[in-house]
């Protein structure tokens, strides 16, 4: 598979080793931090960290829908907490809206909105992973 560039092959043995190592690292990392971790646990508090280093902690009322309005670097955001213990960014003034499109995540996970400089649920448990980083 060389075509007009006979010197550079499409794949070599070293490529296979690199790819296998990456898949193994990704899988191991996902096992430790990701899939299934924190499932079923609903924390008592939700910590939101702002780009200037300030943190705010909100009490979570289990079994109730909660809207938490905050103001980030780009403008206002609304964080929603539902009865099943999930969180999402319901509205945001950031230009990309990727944080809104991320949708619902488990309450043991976090969402980072880079343009707004906001980390929702910063104090994720050790075994939990962030669900989305939005640009």
């Amino acid at each position: 598979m060389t075509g007009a560039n006979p010197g550079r092959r499409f794949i070599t043995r070293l490529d296979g080793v690199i790819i296998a190592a990456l898949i193994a690292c990704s899988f191991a990392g996902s096992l430790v931090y990701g899939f299934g971790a924190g499932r079923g646990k609903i924390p008592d508090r939700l910590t939101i960290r702002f780009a200037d280093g300030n943190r705010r902690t909100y009490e979570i009322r289990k079994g109730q829908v909660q809207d938490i309005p905050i103001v980030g670097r780009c403008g206002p955001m609304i964080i929603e907490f539902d009865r099943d213990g999930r969180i999402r960014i319901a509205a945001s003034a950031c230009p990309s809206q990727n944080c809104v499109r991320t949708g619902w995540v488990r309450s043991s996970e976090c969402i980072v909105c880079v343009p707004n400089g906001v980390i929702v649920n910063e104090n994720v448990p050790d075994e939990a992973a962030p669900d989305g980083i939005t640009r």
Partner: protein
Amino acid sequence: MRTTSYGLHGWCAGNDRSAASSAGSEKLRLIVSLGILTAAASAVQIAESSLPRLLPWLKPGLSNALVLYALIRMPPFFAWTLVLFRSLVTGIILGTLFTPTGWMSLAGGAAAVATMSLAAGLGQNRIGLSGISVTGAVAHNIAQLAVAGCFAGSFIPILLHLPIMLGAAVPSGLVVAALTHQLLRRTP
């Protein structure tokens, strides 16, 4: 008169090719090639930004195929210039210039070029297009996470994202490598 050069003659119209050849200017040829590749890479990146995605923040980064092409076929500085111009053009058109998204794009591109240059330097028989592309994708993702950490003000939640990003680098790197392979095969 040179008849072979940096591989983009097949893309140019006949008049452009003859004009560049008659001028006999390698510099002119490089500038034309840079313009074509910048336009193509920017167009691909802009088109990609509006396509539906598996995850909102995950893109395959198909424009990196043109960067890898430049890295293999062009002089060493060319791919760096291409990444810089691509970031500028897409930043202006998408409105992300000097925003966190724009800096993430530039940092990711620069890290990918640096890593792919090092990987390509290992030798043609040791590492193929797939290895170069996948290592570039990994560097791209790590650099983007680092810049995201700077803007978000905290690195730990961001770095917890690394396993997903490492996994995502493999398919995107392989797709980019396959595209580059076709580009190299189809252009003189």
